[in-house]
């Protein structure tokens, strides 16, 4: 072939004894891998286009298909691994920045997997969540420093605006545009049914979803797409997006191809024009400016909605969070290195930022050292994969967790990591009508509700084992955690002891 040729990463293996030439795979694959060879009456595959999304595998009625990693490789080299070589070929060919999607797939330490959870034995009884009440409700928002009483000595019970969650999990920002209408519908309905919140992301809010307002976080990002007064007032809280874990320090880019019909109207930009969010907010060049934006948003919503400031976990995160806590924000959301995205430059996704576990531990401790931890709530995201991850994050000091990739997986995402192509075969990261239709919002909602309900049950079981019957007694309770295989420095930052200590 030629110098540009890269051998396909995957092989489509078809068991011809089983294949009945029903052509379902042909219809299911938006990448047009499968075609019927009419002359020979057999299905053939063009593997150069396959991204291993498993759609055809899942829908083949005779289980005739499987996708395997190709064993055609470059000569093995621990330093120049095949991915590295292929990326060089691609860039030498195109001269462009490499794009990727979903979270950092590289082998970096996952601290959550090196933390173990405690349980009670003898001196303190475990509690059975099936027999005893076990509470997972949380309130996010600023808590006043001092109580006040009226002239009759009665407590004044007003609190600054709070978000109430039945379980400390929320669906984090994914814009309408980067994901489909049906995906948004499923998230909004599931959040409402579960008593939690989902997040509009930076693409505005489709008018059909205003009814889910009490369970919606509306996002204001640097592009300010779709931001107007009704939008701000539609949600339960407003999030200012300063950064994102998958791409700290840069803005966003939704290609014009995805800006069609309702997406363009909701974003308030012309069809087909690229939606480019600048790296900074051009009205925020300092912490004072952030304070101004926080208060303008509060002013626009009559101080009825808590304001969240979302930042990516970067080296100096503790100091940054401490500044945000003093900026008037009610909630700080921190997004870690492994957080997902619809599209990000590969180099940035894979190399910029720090793991969320370390960021959270440092921020929570810093805010406590400064005596201002109760001024803000902390929400963390960046690859929270299961109920145990949630429990560990809460015990490290988070008030709640943001999940996105896990939610998309529940909707059918197979982590093929090619969201940027806009041809998601699972109807999620696409605006192509025929593909969007594949995601049934009712079924999607049901699956999300199932997932969070199952996690909630597991959280309760883990809490019960520790003899804790309310999630607030777990928050920041680092004595319930032990590290395994971590260095002294890592343990020190996480603020936990090693297993056996």
């Amino acid at each position, binding site marked *: 072939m030629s110098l540009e040729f890269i051998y396909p990463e995957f092989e489509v293996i078809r068991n011809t004894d089983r294949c009945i030439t029903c052509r379902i795979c042909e219809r299911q694959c938006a990448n047009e891998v499968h075609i019927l060879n009419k002359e020979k009456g057999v299905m053939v595959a063009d593997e150069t286009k396959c991204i291993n999304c498993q759609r055809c595998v899942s829908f083949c009625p005779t289980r005739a298909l499987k996708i395997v990693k190709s064993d055609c490789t470059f000569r093995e080299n621990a330093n120049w691994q095949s991915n590295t070589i292929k990326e060089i070929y691609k860039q030498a060919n195109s001269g462009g920045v490499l794009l990727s999607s979903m979270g950092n797939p590289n082998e970096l330490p996952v601290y959550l997997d090196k933390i173990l959870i405690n349980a009670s034995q003898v001196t*303190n009884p475990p509690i059975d969540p099936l027999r005893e009440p076990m509470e997972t409700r949380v309130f996010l928002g600023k808590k006043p420093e001092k109580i006040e009483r009226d002239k009759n000595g009665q407590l004044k*019970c007003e609190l600054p605006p709070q978000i109430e969650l039945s379980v400390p999990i929320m669906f984090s920002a994914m814009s309408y545009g980067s994901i489909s209408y049906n995906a948004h519908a499923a998230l909004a309905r599931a959040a409402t049914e579960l008593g939690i919140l989902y997040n509009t992301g930076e693409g505005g809010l489709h008018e059909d979803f205003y009814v889910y307002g009490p369970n919606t976080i509306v996002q204001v990002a640097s592009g300010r797409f779709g931001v107007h007064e009704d939008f701000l007032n539609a949600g339960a809280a407003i999030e200012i997006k300063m950064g994102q874990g998958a791409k700290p320090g840069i803005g966003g880019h939704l290609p014009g191809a995805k800006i069609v019909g309702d997406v363009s109207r909701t974003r308030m930009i012309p069809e087909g024009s690229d939606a480019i969010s600048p790296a900074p907010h051009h009205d925020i060049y300092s912490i004072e400016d952030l304070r101004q934006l926080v208060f303008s948003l509060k002013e626009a919503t009559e101080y009825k909605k808590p304001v969240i400031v979302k930042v990516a976990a970067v080296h100096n995160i503790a100091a940054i969070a401490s500044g945000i806590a003093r900026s008037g924000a009610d909630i700080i959301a921190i997004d870690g290195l492994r957080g997902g995205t619809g599209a990000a430059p590969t180099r940035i996704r894979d190399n910029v930022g720090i793991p969320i576990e370390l960021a959270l531990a440092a921020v929570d401790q810093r805010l406590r050292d400064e*005596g201002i931890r*109760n001024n803000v709530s902390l929400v963390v995201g960046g690859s929270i994969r299961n109920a145990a991850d949630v429990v560990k994050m809460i015990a490290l000091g988070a008030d709640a967790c943001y999940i996105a990739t896990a939610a998309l997986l529940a909707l059918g995402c197979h982590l093929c990591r090619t969201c940027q192509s806009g041809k998601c075969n699972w109807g999620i990261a696409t605006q192509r009508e025929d593909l969007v239709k594949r995601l049934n919002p009712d079924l999607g909602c049901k699956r999300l509700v199932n997932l969070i309900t199952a996690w909630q049950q597991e959280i309760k079981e883990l809490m019960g084992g520790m003899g804790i019957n309310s999630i*607030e*007694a777990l928050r*920041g309770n680092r*004595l319930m955690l032990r590290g395994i295989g971590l260095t002294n420095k890592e343990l020190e930052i996480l603020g936990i002891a090693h297993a056996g200590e």
Partner: protein
Amino acid sequence: MKINSELQGAYVFSSGKNMGTFKAVGYPEDVGVFYKLEEYEGYCWIAHGRYPTNTPGWWGGAHPFTLLDWSIVHNGEISSYDANRRFIEMFGYKCTLQTDTEVITYIMDYLLRVQGLTLDEAASVVAAPFWSTIEDKTNLAEKEKYTFLRTLFASLLITGPFSIVLGFEGGLMALNDRLKLRSMVVGEKEDKVFIASEEAAIRTMEPDAQNIWAPAGGEPVIVKVKEGAF
């Protein structure tokens, strides 16, 4: 605080006023004789025999813990310890003894003295009613108050089994964890009130004690000395 955390070789175990604390390792009757308790008079006596479960016994670890106007004894092990500790340490307290009781003492001082809560209010912070109980309340003002206190002082909820007796000038308060994982009984006789983990203890002190009852989990029992009695 400063002495305990920073000075080598010196330790303040008690800094109460109008109260005495006697600690020792040994049998209760010997401790009484050793300190000549018969020479003291008081309107409120709190005694605690401890079988130290998780740490070797030593006299310093014996209850009560006394601080300013509070003396606390506590039976149980709290699972919320580190959540409580890390919160209360924001306000200048330093937990140096690594015991649950110490942190409870600081929480009570913070809620009652620093924040100015009433005893009932403080009880509904540390042994907060379940959300379902709060929701079922028909009295709207109460519902609002409990929701407010629970939200505001979420990190001071104490979980795990405990029974606490808190002595202060003019009275005492007894409180169980909200699931009542530790026993506590109250009895009366004339103008005296007895509170103990077991009824047998009350009977030993006062064989004719009346109105013996076990308060519900999270329900504080507050006893105050009659006005002008001291």
